[in-house]
């Protein structure tokens, strides 16, 4: 099986480790991975801030970049949701076709590759925050938790109020920074209360926000993308 990686602009520039983990993980499962270099940003921040016209060229670019791939995989629920949900409204038939071929990582693993045990090893206590776009717009459901539960050595602790928004919300984090931070602080408090040392998510933008709070508050917990946990094995442990 062959798939194109849509790494997303945030992962490309700030969290390459998530992209690398995704590549390693997929290759380990026998998926041949391509990285079309013409890709950049899906346009979600622009679109959600009210700049629909400015989003159109990015929709065209992204659509062109992934032409011809049967599967496009992205380790970001919110970018997957943007393509799935809004590309058909903004772009042409090709954009709509991309929407139907784009998968968030956990969807791809469970629905297309057909695995929940990816052979990972990660001996840490982990709690999982399901980001809103993955949860509500994509309906990822139990997929991420099932994948985590199958990881050897990993103890999964339920996050109280898991389904509540962490307060990132793209430009919301800046335009309403006080409310955003209050939401993030509450989320961090719930996460820390589980006693886990790792706060796992499938969206690095939410993790950037939560990680920024964890760091500011010197909390005994780190934020880590799900792909990095799944990529970790006994032979090649992720730190």
């Amino acid at each position: 099986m062959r798939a194109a990686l849509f790494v997303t602009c945030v992962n490309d520039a700030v969290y390459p480790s998530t992209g690398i983990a995704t590549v390693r993980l997929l290759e380990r499962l026998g998926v041949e991975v391509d990285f079309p270099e013409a890709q950049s940003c899906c346009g979600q921040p622009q679109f959600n801030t009210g700049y629909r016209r400015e989003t159109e060229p990015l929709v065209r670019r992204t659509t062109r970049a992934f032409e011809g791939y049967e599967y496009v995989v992205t380790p970001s629920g919110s970018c997957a949701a943007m393509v799935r949900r809004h590309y058909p409204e903004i772009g042409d038939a090709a954009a709509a076709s991309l929407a139907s071929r784009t998968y968030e990582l956990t969807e791809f693993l469970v629905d297309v590759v057909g695995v929940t045990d990816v052979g990972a090893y990660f001996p840490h206590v982990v709690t999982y925050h399901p980001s809103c776009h993955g949860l509500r717009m994509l309906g990822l459901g139990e997929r991420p938790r099932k994948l985590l539960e199958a990881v050897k050595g990993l103890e999964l602790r339920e996050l109280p109020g898991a389904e509540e928004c962490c307060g990132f919300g793209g430009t919301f984090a800046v335009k309403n920074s006080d409310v955003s931070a209050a939401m993030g602080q509450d989320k961090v408090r719930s996460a820390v209360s589980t006693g886990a040392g790792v706060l796992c998510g499938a969206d690095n933008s939410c993790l950037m926000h939560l990680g920024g709070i964890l760091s500011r508050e010197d909390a005994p917990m780190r934020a880590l993308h799900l792909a990095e946990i799944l990529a970790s094995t006994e032979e090649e442990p992720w730190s």
Partner: protein
Amino acid sequence: MSGTYLGMPAFPVAAKAALGNETLRGNLRHATHTIRDKREKAVAELDDWALLREAGKQIKDHTLRHLDRYLVQLEESVTAAGGVVHWARDAAEANRIVAELVKATGESEVVKVKSMATQEIGLNEALEAEGISAYETDLAELIVQLGDDLPSHILVPAIHRNRGEIRDIFREQMGAWGRAAPEGLSDTPADLAEAARLHLREKFLRAKVGVSGANFMVAETGTLVVVESEGNGRMCLTLPETLISVVGIEKIVPSWQDLEVFLQTLPRSSTAERMNPYTSMWTGTTDGDGPRAFHLVLLDNGRTDTLADEVGRQALRCIRCSACLNVCPVYERAGGHAYGSVYPGPIGAILSPQLRGIGSEVDASLPYASSLCGACYDVCPVAIDIPEVLVHLRERIADRGGKGHRLEKAAIKASGWVFDHPKVLAAGERVASRTRKLHPSRVPGAGAWTDSRDLPELPPEPFRDWWKKNRAEKNSAGNNSAESNSAESNSSAKNRGEGSAT
């Protein structure tokens, strides 16, 4: 707080003030979480919830599409049943009509059923200016009125108050408005309710004029419907000689069969009850039973304009259940007052800027008062896609330009150009990565982000460069990829702002 939203600051400023109030945050958190948990259970009891939701949506959409026809039908039915219909283009016109109707009775007091429409037009203040006292009879609305406060929730206007605060308001204010609170009033719910009951009973028995809104108007019979939990509404609707109902034109449903859908979805969504304790219906006038004169004031006040907007019009489906407020994480922290309008929370953020226009600072800030998490859409019993309308309204505001948006637009354009040229993007990423040791995690001037959050540390190289080195030319890169991987992974946790203990 004094009884008007005029001159409210934009949402972020008002929200910041509310966030500083610990009591308010505690009250709101407790109240919204209790009701949202109950709602979930009440909704789960119905296995046809999804169908009811879809039916509600379709009925409302159909009605809105043919609103002209149904309004004419309603007017005919109400008139035939002995009522009088008045049309009000805006708040001023509606207030004038009501004031004249009250004056014509020779009375200077009215009792009121809790109503969003009369709050929207500021009826109480308008009547006061004409020398007419309007008494709120809904318990929560009474607390707001006595406290010279503003409502902060659609269904529970005094949600931001706790029992101790309510007892103090009753003790201090009831006497000035009528029957005083009993000596030594405690803050137990039973005592507070009894004090309110005694205070209100006096008013019900004296009032000659009642003013109400309505949850629904049935076009085929001209019947108005009010659903409530306390029974005060029924007193106001049946005891006075004259009844004046002010209702938004979107409240119409074609038939009784349509009503059946909403009588199931509204109570479960709002109070988590299977059925409303009191459902009152009145059709014109009836000899020897209830008010002898009935006036219906049909209110537009921005609704026709809202209807003209293909995306935004879905806000007119709203049945004011307030479920979206109770699940909204932004509402929970900011409180209702921060929205600067009688409609707070997610529905307020899309309805107020449409009804009032986006001219004021507070109205232009409302569509941004959301993280677009989508919880509101999930619970809405008429499936209003609130996030979709928020983004749509943001587009309108960004298009108009003005304060802040010109700069933002320029930045978006510039970043758009970069994103459309991946070579330039890659070069920029490389520069940022190479100079990363120069980026402190608390950048002075990056205020909005770094006030409470550290910035992530940038990686040594962007993903595309790793790919080039390790995968693009697979033949040469095959062997050293593992090394490179572990070098990357070691820096991964730090990138998100690692805690000190790790």
